[in-house]
């Protein structure tokens, strides 16, 4: 079964182009124009999500965190249209966060070859390799360490089962 990819971008033409391009690569691709739509779609499983960094309402990183609550193993690519040396400090912080949080961070306009290569490489990785990180996502860093460990173990089990 083809890997499932969710593309989230508020710009219709960009969204459609990305969806079609990835479909041509043989993936099962769905598009979402905003965070709400994306979260609804994430009731189903996706292997990878491509998010626009700057979107009205919720930025790509906030949305990614919400999606990861639903699908902890999801791989992520943030597409940033952000310009270098932006003087808005919030933007700079959010951008730094995106670089840390997302599995990959690419600048718009990204070349098709580069995007496809990045998608391929991410999908080739076993998401559970980084199980501690996934555990953290699930626990959201809020519960006690004990609970965290238990949940982590549980989610790991769950993931393995799904994967096999």
């Amino acid at each position, binding site marked *: 079964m083809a890997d499932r990819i969710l593309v989230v971008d508020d*710009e219709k*033409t*960009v969204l459609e*182009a*990305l969806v*079609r*391009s990835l479909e*041509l*690569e043989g993936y099962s691709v769905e598009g979402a124009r905003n965070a709400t739509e994306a979260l609804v779609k994430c009731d189903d499983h996706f292997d990878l999500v491509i998010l626009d960094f700057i979107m009205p309402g919720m930025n790509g990183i906030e949305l990614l965190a919400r999606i990861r609550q639903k699908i902890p193993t999801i791989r992520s690519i943030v*597409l940033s*249209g952000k*310009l*270098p*040396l*932006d*003087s808005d400090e919030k933007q700079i912080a959010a951008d730094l966060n995106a670089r840390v949080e997302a599995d990959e961070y690419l*600048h*718009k*306009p*990204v*070349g*098709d*070859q580069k*995007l496809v290569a990045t998608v391929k490489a991410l999908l080739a990785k076993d998401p559970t390799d980084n199980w501690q990180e996934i555990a953290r996502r699930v626990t959201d860093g809020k519960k006690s360490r004990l609970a965290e460990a238990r949940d982590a173990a549980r989610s790991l089990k769950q993931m393995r089962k799904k994967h096999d």
Partner: protein
Amino acid sequence: MSSKPELQFEASAYLQTLIGRELFRTEEVAIVELVKNAYDSGATAANIVIRPRSPREPGEIVISDNGSGMTLPRFKELFMFAGYSERPQEVSNAVRIPTGEKGIGRFASDRLGSRLQVITKVKNQAKALCVDIDWTKFANRQKRFHDITVPYRQELAPEFPANEHGTILRITNLREPWDRSQVQSLQRALAQLIDPFYPPPNFEINLQVPGSTALSGIIQQEPISEKEPDIIIRFRVNDDGSIRRTRRGKLYSDPERDTFHPSVDSTPIAGLSGVFLYFLGRPNKEQTKGIQPGVKIYRDGFRVQPFGSEAADWLGIAEKRAKRAGHAHVVPSRLFGFVAISRKVQPKLQDTTSREALLDTDAARSMVNVLREQLLYLEESVKTDVAAPRWQETKKRRASATLQTLNMMSIGLAHELKQPLQTIRTEAAIIDKRLRQLGIQDAYISTAQRNIDQSIERIDRNIRLIAAVSSGNTDEITRFDLAVMLRDECQLLVPRCASQGIELVQAIPENQVVALNATTITTVLFNLVQNAIEAHADVNDSRPKKITVSLRKEGADNILEVADNALGIPDEIKPHIFRRFNTNKTGGWGVALYNCQLLVKTHGGEISFDTQARAGTKFTVRMPNMEIHG
């Protein structure tokens, strides 16, 4: 021997009234005239006592001095002989330089009151001479001057004990009530009459208003502190007519001295000295010590009216300003001039009879010329050292505003362009991919796709560059080591060059501390190197591709150079290289070069280039160190 019949002039008694009331324009001038007489008599002090007129008091003004006093014969000669004065002859051997020369000062008392009592006593005489004059008697056109008699007596005067001497003028039947405001105005007028820098030597004016300590006291004029004015021009006419001049003030850290010959012969006024104090902003009272603006003349410590008064624009400063508004740089209300002349040193600068102004002589014209030249010098100083830098500043601000507007537009545009570029790029790839999937392998289509892709990359680079310029702080000046910074920047550029097969050579000194805007430097360097990389893209021959970044110092300027050994800039492009949106052979970097130039110019620098066909291009950026604010 036959005697020819002869006629003689006779003066009507009324002539006195004409002189006394008409020639002395104001009460202040009249009092000053009498004070000057006291000075001329060798006194070290003149006391002015004013008892204002009131319902109970008739009021009087008493001006007394401790000068030499007069005997009866001397009184007849000096006081009673209208128009007689020994003073011009006295000048050469007098210890003190007399201020009066016309012999009419005595009539000034008529301006103040109709009755005058003179009590005068010389040294070593027991009795004083007392004379009572009723000026109203002279107001008769029918009588002759000598028909009016003046009674006198010689008696012991309680005012002058044994060894004392001097003259007392008691003026009664005052013409003015001398209320508080009038005394205050006299106080100010007297102060303004004294040269603040060179007051009359060994002489003191003491004003007493019985019952008022506020109005009583020594009259003095504090000079303007030389720490306050922005421009100070001091000048002196040498014996040979040359002028020695010094320029100092807050605007100048070091005094500038020069000696030169003015355009008009200045030997008649040799010894004249003066100072122009100029404030760039409106000075406050504390700074001016209450002195009114204007260029004033003081002779032997006493002011010569009306020079420097508000109404007398005798050097034509206000007129010039009125005519040329923005181009006349000297604002009359900010100029305080003090010119010192002396009856002894410049005898040719003579008073007019009214004691106002000077006779129009060669010497007077020469003085006006010298002062006008100093004024021009002041004007030139304001122009070059204040106005021009201000214009420069305005220009810079305008350039900076233009840049900011351009940047704001650019950054908005850049954000906006990213989306369609992404679409175009992806769609072009889709066409290529899809056709291949459909089994159509077509070189044209693949090349087109590749070309679109490359073009988009180029557009994107431009966008990033503009954004970099736009968002960087292009105003702040900081001190940093430019050599270290350039080496760091080059480090980032090396891989970019290497990927195009270009060697990045650095000729950067160990250290070069500068005070500049860092964003400007990084932006300009990035641009120029990128430009050079682009230039190499057209080179097809086998020579090793090279870009050299060098830094050096030339005086106060920092010289940054970026040179390539590519093909050079074609002749037809050269004149347009820094034009906005020139996108021709410069590899689409027209906006970038335009922005670079704008940035460099904003910071007082220059950017130029030198190019040779098939040998390469060298861009030279000259940046002077800037002042660090705050």
